[in-house]
């Protein structure tokens, strides 16, 4: 019994050893196996090994000044560095939260190695768009909830109250001598000067579908930001004008109703 038991033990231990070796082998070659499944060559996987430690960092860069198309063009000598650098430049500050592609960017690599760079580029952009869409969907409720912050911007309230007061004043004293739009324009100029003295409410950069589309089509983020800012200012002026004109007509009608004045 004794010798039988020891041989069984030996065979068991040998089997276990074999299993252990097999397991280790599998674990050691897991990356290679995965690359083989995905379709990378060994060279590709080796070159990407250095950046494997960096986490995927998705980010949509609104502060980036270069268009995506220029940075994603194939650069045989520089490898994969340039695109990620331009992508992750200074955007994080501007639009924290809107992601883009992996930092260790695969586009340049793919462009270098792939026989179909156009397709790879397209797929990469499509991937970005899908991620962006997902994030927009997630951000929507948060934006809806945070829209109240815009409402309590003291400068906007000040502007509206100023427009109302000016309209009443103009109707009472000025309109007989001057067009009603002249004082309004003066008021807007005054607002432009006064805006410096009001605390700046941090406006959350709204990621609209239009913004995303413009960004993905390669328009620099700086241009988009400025356009959005100008658009917002125009909206403010329009709101002031509407309130001013409405108050003017309202006060005019009230004065007519009470018969104190005739135009």
């Amino acid at each position, binding site marked *: 019994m004794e010798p039988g038991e020891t041989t069984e033990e030996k065979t068991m231990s040998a089997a276990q050893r074999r299993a252990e070796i097999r397991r280790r082998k599998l674990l050691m070659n897991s990356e290679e196996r995965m690359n083989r499944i995905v379709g990378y060559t060994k060279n590709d996987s080796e070159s990407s090994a250095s950046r494997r430690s960096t986490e995927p960092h998705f980010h949509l860069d609104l502060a980036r000044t270069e268009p995506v198309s220029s940075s994603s063009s194939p650069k045989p000598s520089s490898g994969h560095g340039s695109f990620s650098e331009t992508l992750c430049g200074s955007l994080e500050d501007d639009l924290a939260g809107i992601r883009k592609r992996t930092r260790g960017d695969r586009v340049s690599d793919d462009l270098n190695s792939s026989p179909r760079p156009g397709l790879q580029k397209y797929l990469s952009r499509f991937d970005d768009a899908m991620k962006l869409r997902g994030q927009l969907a997630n951000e929507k409720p948060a934006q809806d909830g945070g829209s109240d912050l815009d*409402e309590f911007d003291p400068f906007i309230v000040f502007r509206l109250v100023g427009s109302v007061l000016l309209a009443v004043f103009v109707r009472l004293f000025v*309109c007989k001598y001057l*067009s009603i*739009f002249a004082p309004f324009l003066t008021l807007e100029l005054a607002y432009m000067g006064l805006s410096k003295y009001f605390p700046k409410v941090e406006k959350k950069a709204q990621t609209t579908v239009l913004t995303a589309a413009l960004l993905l089509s390669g328009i620099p983020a700086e241009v988009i930001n400025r356009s959005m800012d100008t658009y917002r200012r125009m909206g403010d002026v329009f709101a002031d004008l*509407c309130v001013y004109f*409405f108050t003017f*007509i309202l006060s005019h009608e009230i004065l007519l109703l009470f018969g104190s004045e005739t*135009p």
Partner: protein
Amino acid sequence: MAAGYAWFLVLGSVFLCNLMKTLLPSISSFLSKLVQKDAEQESEMRAEIHEMKKEQSTISMMDEFARHARLERKINKMTDKLKTHVKSRTAQQAKMKWVVNIVFYILQAALMISLIWKFYSDPVTVVPSKWIAPVERLVAFPTGVAGGVGITCWLVVCNKVITLGLHAIS
């Protein structure tokens, strides 16, 4: 009419439309509650499930397994029924919401078109033309009356002001 309350009529219409738009979710939920008569049944089912769960918690699974299992099956059956019920109710609510939205937008469009039709050639109010000097034609569009405030301009102004007001209130 130009000297009358046309401006107020337009203002009131726009205000009503905006108010209705704000209240649209409440209206649709109220209507769906009216339409659904078996809301009580659902609450009864919920209460029943609650009671049964309470009862089940008092029964020892080891000592009275059969009774416990019977109760468990009963709870499961009732829960499934409730789920089906809730699903159908949710679908009905969504349908109701859709119908209310469609009806509202059709009515709003009809109201706006009729207002524009009515005041196409008459201004809603008139002020001396020099008061609105450089843009009097734009303001008077489409009436062409010097110094008149056209329906288009007044609709835009009212809509903006009321939207701002309602937003501030809400």
